[in-house]
């Protein structure tokens, strides 16, 4: 069993809430931290995390790939659902490094919100690819900075080459209710996934 409690809390009063999380992803400067700030009940916190990557060049003396550790800031916020349930929102650090940090963030996540800036569409490809690969339910959300979408949403879908069943929505990362609705879109996707899996299990 992977998940366990260190000390089995006996007293219900003295039991920490169950944590759940949603990953907020996208390229640099698309509004991840803005979105987290808009809805988090605590001011977004930032912590240092290390990403270890193996350098492309091989160290000639030892013939061992040189390892580099980069420190990145991990931003996150939280929403208390009730006494026994807390939702965390973690922004993925860096846009195209997929070190263990991404696995850490995605493991056990309910889903992911991939934020897109239509002026820099390419920035979100790595995130979309990653979530598709690991099978994490996700929604692509175009951040409309000024409330208007410069392109037709179908054109954006085509340009992003995302599958038809991946929801594509627009939202405003500065607006609390708009962020709430984007997160709800993620959770509905998660719910659909869960139902599909249950049905598949019955069929087999």
């Amino acid at each position, binding site marked *: 069993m992977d998940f366990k409690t260190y000390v089995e*809390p006996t007293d219900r009063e003295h039991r*920490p809430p169950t*944590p759940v999380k949603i990953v907020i992803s996208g390229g640099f400067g698309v509004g991840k931290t803005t979105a987290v700030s808009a809805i988090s009940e605590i001011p977004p916190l930032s*912590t240092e995390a*290390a990403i270890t990557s193996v350098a492309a060049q091989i160290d000639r003396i030892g013939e061992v790939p040189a390892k580099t550790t980069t420190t990145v800031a991990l931003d996150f916020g939280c929403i208390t659902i009730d006494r026994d*349930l807390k939702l965390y929102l973690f922004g993925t650090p860096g846009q195209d490094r997929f070190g263990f940090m991404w696995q850490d963030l995605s493991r056990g*996540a309910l889903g992911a919100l991939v934020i897109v800036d239509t002026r820099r569409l390419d920035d979100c490809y790595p995130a979309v690819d990653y979530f598709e690969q690991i099978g*994490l339910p996700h929604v692509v959300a175009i951040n409309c900075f000024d409330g208007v979408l410069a392109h037709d949403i179908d054109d954006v879908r085509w340009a992003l080459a995302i599958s038809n069943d991946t929801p594509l929505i627009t939202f405003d990362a500065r607006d609390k209710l708009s962020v709430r609705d984007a997160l709800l879109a993620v959770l509905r996707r998660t719910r659909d996934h869960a139902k599909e899996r249950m049905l598949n299990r019955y069929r087999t």
Partner: protein
Amino acid sequence: MTDESSGIGPPSASSIRPYLARHGDGPAQQADDGDDPNVSPLRPYLLTAGRSEPIDDTLEIEAQVLTNQLDAASAERLAFEHRDIVTLCATPVSVAEVAAKLRLHIGVARVLVADLAAAGYLVVRRPSSGLPEDLDMIEKVIRGLQDIR
């Protein structure tokens, strides 16, 4: 990587490893890489006696940590970061919050929390397994978000 089979099991020692409790003396002034004034000047791995993997390296960064009331009194004996964590977790917070609020590297916070939990100072509530398929839980989160106005 630590050996998982020996790493995850119940703690054999009932207290914090002695070398972990005495880290605060010397090396603080050696901090010469003051890139970020917000980060503890101690080199992170001094705090964890060189380990970068927690006893249980699967501890999630969102896992909830709460001070174990039974042990709150004995926390007086703890030093520095250990004591700060036990104090901070009087109300439940995540491992990530421990890192952010005490300005610790997240890997360090993970190690320290895991150690303190193993020694009985903290109660840790981890995400339940199979969460992404738990329909009741998903519905509960949906309703909770819908209540946000």
